[in-house]
């Protein structure tokens, strides 16, 4: 049974989805489509009448980075297999989402191949167990660690049998140990993060599951001894104990590394534009990471991420930004003020992703800002949208295209929310260099308390920095990344959003508070039949 508040919040979520998109979604069935409508006339005009999906996101697999880290926790000298594991699928918001982790034949082939290869490579470090008791003892300890629970007798006996049969077939004792390792690495309790129960809609995570979540979320590996003993002692079941554990975990450098990984995915920088040559790209990446470090250390991370004017430059970047050559060498990144900068939002690596070659794209940038900064995304264009594109001469500016586009009411419904947001960064070309004298005026429609007109990117920036909508959106994205899902009732985001605001918008504080929120300690799913 769903509790009453939860039902209400689910209903509200559905409503929010609709309100956010009302009027901004169109079929072009009535438009001048020479091929006839590609959408049938009885197709719903408004995509927002499709209710938010039920909570059926399945369990996720260890990410490739987690898999490698865990191997290094479990063994002395494991091979590097991250690049041999399945390639994450396109189309998921973050790499932690289950839908990024398909189970197509190639994917499972890869998982099985990797298990074989790891086991083979580990033979030199595996104990030379000549009898069943030795095998049993070794794998009851290793296995419990790997599958995050005590190894049941049936499983243990299967592993013991694998090794025994191999020894009987004249494998050396250590070679025979490779087979239980293969089985272990294929085991779903190793590969997947299992938290659900059959026939239960809502439940509270056990201490062991909390330890697993803490370690995977912040360190991208399995719980260490301290966490395991905290779980065993019941400390993690209490808010105070959980807070203490979170404090220790977040203070660890591995948590900062997770923050870096999150910010890079949040900025959609998984694959970088090739507009910058390799040395420049490397330098820009280095600068980006120094700026992410700053945001981690800052009391107000949001102001840093979307408002700081700081830059770090070595000789390559001095030349790129047109600054005097004062850095002493490639590794000397000196601090500079870049007055036109708005934190990471206008960083050249981000600007280059919102461009076609050297041409800035207000549409791509507007889409990014609405999804990642305002949490108010625009639906994809309808079929045949390209046919409605105004026929303009080559070299028309984004603003001219926009003016022509909104002449058509079908296009206008969405584009009035899209392009004028992206116009804020028209001053930054496709390589992310600032060019003065370009019209940057625009407005944010339906952007919560960030809505309104602005005359240039600096005014746009201060509207974002002052906005609670934008701040809460930041917390929302962390929650999605951390939990690998996005289908939360909005109330679940509110809890963390409020905590984020109360903590002065510090990401370190957010990281520490997050494990004590209900969305971290509680789970819900549909009732199994």
């Amino acid at each position: 049974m769903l509790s009453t508040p939860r039902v209400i919040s689910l209903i509200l979520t559905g409503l929010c989805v609709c309100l956010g998109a009302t009027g901004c979604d169109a079929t072009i069935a009535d438009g001048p489509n020479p091929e006839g409508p590609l959408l049938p006339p009885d197709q719903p005009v408004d995509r927002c009448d499709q209710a938010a999906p039920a909570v059926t996101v399945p369990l996720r697999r260890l990410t490739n980075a987690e898999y490698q880290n865990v191997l290094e926790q479990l063994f002395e000298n494991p091979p590097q297999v991250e690049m041999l594991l399945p390639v994450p699928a396109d189309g998921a918001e973050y790499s932690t989402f289950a839908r990024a982790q398909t189970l197509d034949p190639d994917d499972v082939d890869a998982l099985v191949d990797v298990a074989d290869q790891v086991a083979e490579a580990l033979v030199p470090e595996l104990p030379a167990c000549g009898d069943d008791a030795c095998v049993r003892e070794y794998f009851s300890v290793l296995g419990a660690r790997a599958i995050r629970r005590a190894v049941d007798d049936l499983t243990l006996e299967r592993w013991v049998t694998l090794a025994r049969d191999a020894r009987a077939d004249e494998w050396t004792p250590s070679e025979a140990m490779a087979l239980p390792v293969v089985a272990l690495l294929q085991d779903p309790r190793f590969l997947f993060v299992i938290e659900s129960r059959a026939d239960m809609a809502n439940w509270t995570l056990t201490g062991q599951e909390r330890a697993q979540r803490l370690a995977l979320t912040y360190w991208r590996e399995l719980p260490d001894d301290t966490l395991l003993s905290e779980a065993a002692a019941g400390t993690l079941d209490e808010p105070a104990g959980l807070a203490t554990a979170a404090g220790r975990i977040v203070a660890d450098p591995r948590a900062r590394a997770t923050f870096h990984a999150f910010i890079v995915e949040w900025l959609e920088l998984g694959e970088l534009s090739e507009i910058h040559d390799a040395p420049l790209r490397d330098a820009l990446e280095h600068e980006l990471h120094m700026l992410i470090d700053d945001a981690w250390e800052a009391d107000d991370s949001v102001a840093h991420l979307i408002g700081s004017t700081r830059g770090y430059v070595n000789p390559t970047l001095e030349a790129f930004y047109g600054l005097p050559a004062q850095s002493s060498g490639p590794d000397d990144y000196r601090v500079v003020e870049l007055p036109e900068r708005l934190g990471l939002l206008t960083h050249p690596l981000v600007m280059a992703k919102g461009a076609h070659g050297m041409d800035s794209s207000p549409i791509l940038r507007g889409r990014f800002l609405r999804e990642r900064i305002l949490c108010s995304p625009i639906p994809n264009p309808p079929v045949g949208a390209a046919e409605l594109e105004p026929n303009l001469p080559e070299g028309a500016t984004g603003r001219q295209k926009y003016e022509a586009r909104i002449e058509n009411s079908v296009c206008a419904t969405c584009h009035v929310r899209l392009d004028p947001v992206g116009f804020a960064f028209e001053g930054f070309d496709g390589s992310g260099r600032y060019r003065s004298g370009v019209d940057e005026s625009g407005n944010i429609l339906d952007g919560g308390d960030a809505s309104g007109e602005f005359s240039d990117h600096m005014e746009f920036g201060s509207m974002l920095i002052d906005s609670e909508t934008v701040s809460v959106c930041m917390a929302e994205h962390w929650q999605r990344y951390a939990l690998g899902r996005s289908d939360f009732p909005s109330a679940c985001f509110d809890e963390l959003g409020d905590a984020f605001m109360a903590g002065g918008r510090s990401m370190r504080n957010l990281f520490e508070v997050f494990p004590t929120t209900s969305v971290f300690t509680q789970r819900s799913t549909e009732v199994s039949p």
Partner: protein
Amino acid sequence: MKFSRRKLLKGAAAVAALPLLESMTRSRAFAAADSPRFVIFQSGQGTLLNRWTPAAGENLVMSELLQGLAPFRDKLNVISGVNNLLPRYHLTNGHIAQGHTLLNAHLCTSSASAEGALLPAGSRREVSGADLCVGPSIDHYMASRLGLPQPFNFALPRQSGGENQMFYQVAPELPSRPNGSRVLARVHTDPRAVFNTHLMGLGGEMPPPPEPMRPSLATRIRQRRASTIGATQAVISALSPQVSRADRDRLEAYAARLSEIDTTVTPPMMMPPPVGTSCNPMAPVSGYPDSTTAHYRASIDVMVELLACNVTRIATIQDTEYHGPSFDHLQAPISSELSSRGAVALPGGPISNWHQQIHGDSGGNPNDNPTLRAGFLFYASQFAYMLERMDAIVEPGGGTLLDNSIVMWISEFGDGSSHSTNNLPVVLAGGACGALTTGRHLAQSGKSTGDLYTSILRKMGVPADSFGLVGDSDLQTGGLTGF
């Protein structure tokens, strides 16, 4: 880069670890070579129809974009006017449903019931890249009907995934794959690995070294896969009832995939090539995936050799890079290998916005865009190379491999500029062992992809009244006109 460093390494590892075992396990499965072979070449983003469509009349006159195929004019049927009507049943923003449904003429799971039937309009979801399709693709269906092993599906230059998931096996319904969806076919991206596994040693090229006394540890671990996977399956069976339904479905999908893994490692087996066979495989040259041209050549070479050596009867090559190919190999001056087959150089440097140019988003009229012509002529040049290779292989029973095949070139759009799935550009090369009259332009009206595949099935010896979704009256009319 998404392309598969994993797959390259995997290929290399397989060669190192399994010098012979795998390579020798496949042998010619067929005695006779006198029934036709079927090949699909799929390129992306349609074409420029008024430069592609041949002049009216059945006598084939090569159009501008088909010039590279002129040497094979007498062995071609160009089919114009075939429509893919399936996008009418999908909510989609563009390429996705077309890409999914081109070769199976059926629904995607976003618009199908658990039994695979069409859902009412209000219940259909938007198609996403992850949605699979209902029903097998034509190549796998044909293989199944003819009792042949699974076709070889090649993808280049990158990976098989993304938005163009076109190839589906004939597979039993899996509980973890609801809505009637089928299983994606295994796609090969590394032609050298295919050569090593399936062709090396055939045709008397390479005598087998003696079998090692004791297989390597890697091979022995692999030989035990039935046991290790069996242990995992047992764990999943015990675990599934303890988790939620969504989790259980996913665990069962994992179990189903594990059960598909080939755990049989049979001893090496060498058979002398049949007398008079045209099987003489050569290892593909290196140069891919760095060079698109080399990757194309290697994939085509290996695919043709698989057919010539009778390892398979049905094969496909898909260019999955429909979104942003840079065509850097078409920078002036282009190689004679390309220009001799009708390819032309780009007007400028490599391009970064192929997709925008296709749809005219970069300004100007796509039809007058020399970059687009260069791209489409490149695809034609590669199809020409494929035909050239097939036509050079004289078969023991008479005729060339091309004469004894149907080789289809198709794209998911007609005019790419308008996202239109009507008037698909279709070229059918080869005479299907004499069953098919050639040298014709067959203009169709009111014909669907279902009709196209129905006609092809019949020429391949499969009795068929329809292929794919049988729904609205215009979906299936029983075959092409004049075929």
